[in-house]
């Protein structure tokens, strides 16, 4: 059984599809590409496909990772060429690498996600924006209420911050770099951080206008950040 690890994108064209729909789109592309995907046993066989981390509706990414198991070996270059031809607009293969059979699942090793959040902001608000971010960065504890169809839940946000938020300014856009820890017990979405900034730190932006882009997923420790395809 060969395990192929891919670094792929979720582009502007498909920004608004869900993680589940993204996974189905890739599954269909693999069938179209006639790649020899392996399936699980059982009543309801499914393609052996696994992702590092789900991406929310409305979020793009320049670095998603997935593992796919093949029943037989496929020439790496040929496989990527065939898959690329079958992928819809917005999904690109950036790198591919066969992994040893016993490689741990992506979900178990990826522990850091980095994002760029770009949001329009009135000129002259830069000082106020910097101040909001500074106060957020300095706060020890920030409580955010997560609302899901199942109910409300209080979450402490700061425990998931890998580094302080950094902010830059371009024309009438504020650009924030947000690095978030992914832990075995949970994580936080960048959209939730923006919501918390608006609600509690007086960030003067329309959070619905925020364009979020995942810039990387890493296996990180104190010394280094390593891409899952570079292990």
């Amino acid at each position: 059984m060969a395990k192929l690890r891919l670094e792929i994108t979720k582009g502007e064209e498909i920004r608004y599809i869900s993680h589940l729909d993204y996974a189905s789109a890739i599954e269909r592309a693999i069938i179209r590409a006639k790649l020899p995907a392996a399936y699980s046993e059982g009543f309801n066989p499914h393609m052996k496909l696994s992702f590092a981390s789900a991406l929310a509706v409305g979020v793009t990414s320049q670095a998603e990772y997935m593992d796919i198991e093949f029943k037989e070996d496929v020439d790496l270059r040929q496989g990527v060429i065939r898959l690329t031809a079958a992928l819809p607009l917005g999904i690109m293969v950036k790198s591919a690498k066969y992994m040893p059979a016993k490689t741990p699942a992506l979900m178990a090793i990826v522990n850091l996600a980095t994002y760029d959040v770009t949001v329009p902001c009135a000129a002259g608000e830069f000082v106020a924006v910097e101040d909001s971010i500074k106060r957020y960065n300095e706060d020890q504890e920030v409580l955010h209420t997560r609302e899901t169809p199942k109910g409300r839940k209080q979450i402490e946000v700061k425990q998931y911050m890998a580094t302080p938020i950094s902010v830059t300014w371009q024309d009438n856009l504020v650009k924030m770099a947000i690095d978030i820890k992914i832990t075995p017990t949970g994580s936080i979405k960048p959209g939730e951080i923006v919501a918390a900034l608006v609600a509690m730190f007086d960030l003067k932006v329309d959070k619905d206008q925020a364009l979020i882009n995942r810039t990387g997923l890493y296996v990180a420790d104190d010394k280094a950040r390593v891409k899952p395809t570079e292990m």
Partner: protein
Amino acid sequence: MITLDPAILNRVLKPARYTGNEWNSVKKDHSTVAVTVALSLPDVYEVGMSNLGLKILYQILNNRTDTAAERVYAPWVDMEAEMRSHNIPLYTLESLKPVAEFDIVGFSLQYEMSYSNVLNMLDLAGIPLLSAQRDENDPLIVGGGPCTFNAEPAADFFDCFILGEGEEIIEDLVEVVAAWKRADKVDGKLGLLKKLAHIEGMYVPSLYDVTYNADNAVAQVVPNCTEAGLVVTKRVVKDLNTVGYATRPVVPYLDIVHNRIMLELFRGCTRGCRFCQAGVLYRPVRERTPETLLKFAKELVASTGYSEISLTSLSSADYSCLPTVVQSLIDEFKDQNVSISLPSLRIDSFSIELAQKLQQVRKSGLTFAPEAGSQRLRDVINKGVTEKNLEDAVGAAFAAGWSSVKLYFMMGLPTETDEDVLGIAKLAYRVLDIYKQVTGRRGAKVTISVACFVPKPHTPFEWFAQDTAAEFERKQRLLKAQLRDRNITFNWHDARTSFLEGAFARGDRRMGQVLLSAWSNGARFDGWSEHFKYNVWIEAFKAAELDPHFYATRERTLDEVMPWDHLSSGATKEFLAREYGQAIGGVLTNDCRHEQCSVCGVCQELDVKVIDWGNKA
């Protein structure tokens, strides 16, 4: 081109309904084509994208180098509110161009309760609602689908209707429009409409005048110009093996209603169920060959990446070469994890064997449609199914390991008594007993789904009085009281929705006023119970001084002129009347596919033949 504000897309439910870019969607430069067509089904994306007819037309049109066909569906209420408040006109999913800029806008009319959405979509597009208000600079608004055989209630809003199958006539339409544009839109819109009226199967309602009797029934419908024929007869494809098919359908990102390959085995059904409009409109039976089907299936798996193939038609178990086709599909795709499914089962053990072969291990529920609760009433509707057929089918299913069965019925059929209604409950309990007999255990799950019968035009019951909503509700209560077992689930249809559907199904052109006023008072998505506003519709009838009961719950005499008598499915009035008489007498009519011709008139009138490959072999 429309630009969509991320803030809007971040606020609405399922924004992928509005952003396009799906696999197999076709984007053309409009400056390189002669004709642009926006294809629509006036319902939400997930419903519209599931329609097979539109997939076929999309491919046929886009195969032409002179035509660009794109898609547009009804925005859900949240998106509609955003579009209205931000002045975003209705746009297509391929080019994001305003629908108002297209040459042709085609609506697939699958059910009457979607008419209000047509008005809403035209309004969102900034296109004048009434055909009479539109000129040669507005898009041509075209209707297709089963409702066009009496879309008189919506006639004021459409420029023309396509009667029957679209594969060939859609190209005729495009060619006439292209020629008219090349000739600098000679004689304006009326010039175009008169040319369109020459196309076989094309109905241009504004070229006909309707007059009414003192008793409110239609007096006559007559052409008001020489270009329009006295009767418009449907288009029919003689051989389905020679026309285009949707082998490269758009593959959505969202999970739509029918999210799988649809492989259409044949068209038409001649079982002759007397309530069934599709059974009349799509006559005669024309099968595709097993070779054509296998070829399509391979192309479809390769072009879509779907891993499920649904064998569709009006009655798939009736396909003459079904075992051969199923076996060759299983052989072809056994290494690719592609599963085959049958959407509907005939009530016999043959179907159970097939279902067993297809589903292998997974035992989801089986669905059967006895339609009526007693043998007497099943004979009235010519549903050639006996109690024993059902017992055998259900017994075979339970023996094969299934434990849940869904049964579809109707109430309000002609000659129905309370005893027939209670027969539904008896059948439900009988199914539970059979499970106990077969398995020695209790615990079968039976779901009883009972629709309110809506008499439809062009059927033997087109003269029949629909039950009132109060009568439907009484019968529902009667049945509910009998279905007390916790292993039986009882679902029923909303009687008031069925009542309005009944009024629109057999309505006339005056009901355009009702549609307009109900829409302007907020009616839309009427097929969705959470958006159905009964009182708005009743007020709209009052304002138009029309009585919905006149259309829905009134028995017609056989000699009354129907609003659709100038529109022909090929089946004759004599045939329908004869069938109505046989129904009341409880006399069965055989299936002309296997036995003698029942002289409905379609083959003779339209010069077509039944094509059944099993009979030929």
